[in-house]
């Protein structure tokens, strides 16, 4: 292996290590940031519906009478590919109204045991975000659960990761090629002589 190639190989590995580690760190941060923003956005949407339900309950509607809400959800689902379903549950978790996929009226949903007012659960590529609705006296009245599909977010992050790994590979290859050329120029005279000397050594004197 020529010196120039060894030189380029070490530098190429150094670059690959740096870019690889940098990309891994950046992708981890990106994933965390993306999830935080996405979760916050979904919670904001859920909170909006929880607010609407709270207002409705305040003026005396029962949980089965939120027909306007169904229309709102369907409009939102038409504009947001990730939102796939919504359920309105009573204080015991029994589904009183369901729209879209994943929920069926009459089913029972287990509300968080610690009664936290907002929660998010993720399983496979489905995320459920929930909000509990309380009376002004602190009594639990209902819960809103929105169902989101993560497949688009996951696919987009994976595609971006793959693309950036390709950029890393290309950058490392280009830099190695450049360094082979630089190293070849620097080491050529000496390597030629060493080669000649080695050949002479092989010949009988």
């Amino acid at each position, binding site marked *: 292996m020529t*010196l120039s190639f060894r030189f380029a190989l070490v530098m190429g590995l150094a670059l690959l290590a740096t870019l690889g580690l940098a990309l891994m760190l950046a992708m981890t941060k990106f994933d965390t940031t*993306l999830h935080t923003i996405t979760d*916050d956005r979904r919670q904001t949407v859920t*909170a909006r519906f929880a607010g609407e339900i709270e207002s409705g309950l305040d003026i005396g509607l029962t949980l089965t009478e939120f027909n306007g809400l169904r229309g709102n959800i369907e409009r939102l689902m038409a504009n947001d590919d990730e939102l796939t379903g919504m359920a309105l549950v009573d204080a015991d978790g029994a589904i009183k109204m369901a729209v879209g996929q994943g929920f069926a009226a009459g089913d029972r949903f287990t509300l968080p045991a610690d009664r936290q007012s907002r929660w998010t659960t993720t399983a496979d590529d489905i995320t459920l975000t929930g909000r509990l609705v309380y009376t002004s006296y602190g009594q639990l009245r209902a819960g809103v659960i929105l169902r989101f599909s993560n497949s688009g977010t996951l696919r987009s992050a994976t595609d971006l990761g793959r693309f950036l790994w390709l950029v890393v590979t290309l950058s490392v290859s280009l830099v190695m090629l450049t360094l082979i050329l630089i190293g070849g120029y620097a080491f050529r005279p000496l390597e030629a002589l060493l080669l000649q*000397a080695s050949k002479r050594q092989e010949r009988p004197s």
Partner: protein
Amino acid sequence: MIDLTRRTDAQQPAMWPLLIPSMLLLVITVVSFLYFTLDRFEERLMPEIQSKADGVMQAISLRVERAFVLGATLRNLRGAEDTFHDALEANPEIVSITLSAPDGTIVTAVANPRIHDTATPPVHETRAMPVTLAGKVAGILTIEVDSGYARRVLASLMWDIVGVLLVVLTTAFGLLTFIIQGGFGTGIDSLRSLAERLTSEERRRLKAALAALRSAGRPALPSTSPETLLLPRLLALRVVIFVFFLGEEMLRPFLPEFIHSLAISDPGPLTAVDSRMMVGIALSLFIVVLSLVQLWGGRWSEHIGRMRTLLLGVLLSSLGMIATAICDTLTLVLLARGLTAAGYGLVFIAAQGVAIDLTSRDNRTTGMSMFVGGVMAALLVGPSIGGLTADHLGPRIALVVAAAVSGAAAILAILLLPRTTPLHRPENRSVLADLQLVLSNHRMTALIALSAIPAKIILNTIVFYLVPLTLAERGESLAAVGRIVMVYGLFMVLFGGLAARVGDRSRENLALMVVAGAILSGLGVMVAGWLGIDFWTAALAIAALGLGQAMSVAPQLALVPEICHREVEIAGHATVLGIFRLLERLGGAIGPVLGGWLAMRSTDIAFTAVGLGVALAGLAYLGVELLVRTSRSHISN
């Protein structure tokens, strides 16, 4: 005969003209890649951020509309400001929220203080929506989104990546030195054996090639002197040393906090000891075990062989690290650290022994400088990469990674290191007799007590103990702690060589350099403590300490033979230096316990007291030296 023996002073620097453009190319590629990556991330995150801002806007609009329905108007809308503040608190990417009347008059406007406090004003993107009442526009809600938010969040990784780059470049540089010098060494071996067979035309061409290399600043050829042919072997030793010590240096940023958390959660039979004090004891224990192994292990290593000692040391050290990672009680972790210390000591002895075996008296300094170079390179890059690993994977996995890194030194040793025959050392004086001899020299005693021991106390207390522990407790990431600790190694590497050269040129000023270094490091640490320890004052303390010790460490060692002529003649240079090293380690053992005791009162007090103590010790040493010089000039007069 062709002159292949003309040796450049420093062969490594001769590689710089080739390395600098290559390293620059690497840095440019990394920076360009990062910018490209940030752009792609921003492109992907921005729609999510905008969508989230829209959601926030709709939620606020709904609340305002409900208030309008209940009879509120823009003029008497109460609680809008609080709602906006809550929304800004929960959404850091929103710059401001404004509610205005349909004619544009602003009713309520709240800005995000976190964004407005930053030095660079954010680039805004404005989004607006009407607030309606009975189908009519009753107000306009406007939200400004920080369009640089994604970039800002991801840019926090920048320092981590700079740390990675530095580690990788240092490692690559070490490897290149080994490969290129090794390659040349082999080539020259073959050239030397064939030199007589070269034709005059080939000799002329070789000369021209060498001249061209020198004038272009490309790698200069090493000489064919035994010292140069030795170089590849010493470089191999340096690679092994670097890899082994890298493992232990990786632990620096997180080990104090790791032990501290165990001392709180499961102190076992050591409940009565303060948790901070316990960290100090653990660090001191490591140095005590290491010193004992070094004290008694030297002859044993000569007996069983360097390679076996080295492999055993690597094995014990790695096992100790893995045991530290899996143990969950403080007592077991202390035992595991003792095991690591024993391994560390054995590797130290064996590697130092290989350097001695490979060299003769004439080139021993080169051998030892290779040894020290490996240790320093590990000190430079280890903390940064260790902190980063612990930050992302947790301290226990970082310990396993460190064990694997140290363990890799065994494989490298088997592959690269030559089997050496230990030089026979005459059975002569006992350690106690040597100790007595060295301490009978009062100048030497002063150097040890007022300079060497305080230097180790401040190093082990501040850099390896209090800074990592305090910063971790204050919520700094372990990666940031690693970078701060790395500053010490950086200053040592950058200025240590320079200080050594200055000391070589003016040997009469060696003591002054030692004093200046002690005062600088002491004052830096003291001022940091006085200002109160945070990220930046800790950085100031470590930078001052690094600079101060870079100035004083090499002159300290150079002073030993200068002030111990008689002792060196009787016991030999190596023995006197060995005793100096042994006593110096006392400082390393005392430091963390002293630091722990002081830190039980306050970290700031610990910094101030240790800094002040070291500066005063430096001044006291200056006094001793001045007295000696004055009395000598009186005698000569």
